[in-house]
């Protein structure tokens, strides 16, 4: 996946106005199956899959026993005991090793009871490994208000169109698209109200991709994928989850995906603690991006209206005439609060000129630009039909 095909801003606008496609074949795709799959998964993940039915999906976390986030994932229930999970590319091998360790009882799952073992050992299969006739899958994301029309230009069957038309967020169907078996799921990573992920056999992915291009979908790169998810407020592993601050699901704003009422899951005791004691949170901040304003970057300092450091920037993107930053700041900062940004030194020359690096919390500084805390997540309605 390149950083961009045309330009980040043009691709970003396309997804908000019509539809873009993203080659997400780098994402890890795993199958967990056998009679013990559901029981196994529900002990490994933070969310609760007992409420899932065939054709529905769920966002969740995989933690280690100390509560560190190993990855954020989406779980798709394809049959009573057949689940597909989609993991971050950067975490794919780690999750593979972790699942293997869990299946073989080589991993401590409960710090309070090191002897505790998972009793289940379901089949785990890498669905990206391409083999003839097998059920292998890679991810292509089709996102934006025109996404449905692009699918309907390929899938003409009115009955299937109606099912897709009525697909709710985090629901999916299994059908045939351009001659290929395809999971069409109303999920995505752009915040688009109408967005789908298409899971197809790796050998069939190019024909689906090309068909969508012919239909008018615009190819989009990693740069707009990042600016879209930042604008929407969605976390990226290593930035708004885990990473240098070891950000927890509660701090990221996803406490709802950690079901503390479950009897047990790996990392539960740490999450019980964290849910009561956390005092920082991920917030969305709107800042100006008029001409001549230096772009805000990761590690820049966030100040309250008195100039006191309350945290730092995790990610930032320019969207039209504003910048949207995701920042890790004091939990008691409210929506609509005015905040300032201090640009941390970008290089040694700036350090020599007196610009600071490694700013500590509660240090006082003069803001370079000012903005405002906005809603944790953005809503996009313009041009949207569903």
């Amino acid at each position, binding site marked *: 996946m390149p950083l961009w095909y045309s330009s980040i801003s043009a691709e970003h606008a396309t997804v908000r106005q019509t539809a873009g496609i993203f080659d997400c074949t780098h994402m890890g795709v795993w199958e967990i199956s056998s009679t013990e799959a559901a029981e196994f998964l529900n002990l490994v993940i933070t969310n609760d899959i007992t409420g899932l039915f065939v054709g529905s999906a769920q966002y969740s976390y995989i933690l280690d026993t100390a509560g560190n986030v190993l990855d954020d994932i989406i779980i798709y229930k394809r049959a009573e005991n057949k689940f597909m999970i989609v993991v971050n590319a950067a975490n794919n091998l780690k999750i593979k090793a972790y699942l293997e360790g869990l299946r073989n009882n080589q991993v401590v799952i409960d710090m309070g009871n090191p002897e505790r073992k998972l009793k289940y050992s379901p089949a785990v299969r890498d669905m990206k490994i391409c083999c003839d006739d097998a059920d292998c899958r890679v991810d292509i994301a089709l996102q934006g208000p025109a996404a449905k029309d692009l699918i309907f230009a390929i899938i003409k069957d009115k009955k299937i169109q109606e099912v897709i038309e009525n697909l709710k967020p985090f629901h999916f169907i299994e059908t045939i698209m351009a001659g290929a078996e395809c999971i069409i799921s109303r999920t995505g990573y752009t915040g688009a109200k109408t967005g789908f992920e298409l899971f197809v056999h790796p050998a069939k992915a190019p024909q689906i991709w090309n068909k969508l291009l012919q239909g008018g979908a615009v190819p989009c790169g990693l740069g707009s994928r990042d600016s879209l998810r930042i604008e929407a407020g969605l976390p990226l592993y290593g930035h708004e989850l885990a990473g240098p601050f070891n950000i927890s699901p509660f701090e990221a704003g996803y406490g709802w995906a950690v079901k503390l009422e479950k009897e047990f899951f790996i990392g539960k005791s740490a999450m019980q603690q964290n849910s009561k004691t956390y005092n920082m949170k991920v917030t969305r901040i709107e800042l100006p991006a008029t*001409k001549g*304003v230096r772009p805000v970057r990761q590690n820049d300092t966030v100040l309250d209206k008195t100039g006191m450091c309350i945290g730092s920037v995790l990610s930032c993107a320019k969207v039209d005439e504003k910048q949207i930053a995701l920042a890790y700041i004091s939990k008691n900062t409210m929506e609509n609060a005015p905040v300032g940004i201090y640009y941390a030194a*970008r290089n040694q020359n700036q350090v020599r000129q007196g610009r600071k690096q490694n700013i500590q919390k509660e240090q006082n500084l003069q803001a370079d630009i000012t903005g405002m805390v906005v809603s944790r997540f953005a809503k996009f309605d313009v041009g949207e039909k569903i």
Partner: protein
Amino acid sequence: MIAEGLLYTQDHEWVKIEGDTATAGITDYAQEILGEIIFVEMPAVGKELKFHDEMAVVESSKSASDVYCPAVGRIVEVNSKLESKPELVNEDCYGAGWIAKLKIADSSFVDRLMDAKQYADFLKGL
């Protein structure tokens, strides 16, 4: 695209020498790699720079990159148009997107630069 008559560094800066004035900017290769440039931090006029000193910072939506001084001398003028139109660096990197002019103090730095043909060969090797 490489412009004839300019000299180049391995860090993808160019410099045009006219008498004792050196005009400096970044190359087409550099602007292409950086993507949409949205901010340029200019050096202060009057500043004395040695070869390869940090001269400017060019920021795109994906990165902040140092621009090193491809000459030796004192900054006599900066391209103030870039404050409101940083995209000139993308649109016309060898022309309207120039970054700074220096009064050359010592021209021996020229030996450390490549001509257009050498720079083209250098790019092929990357």
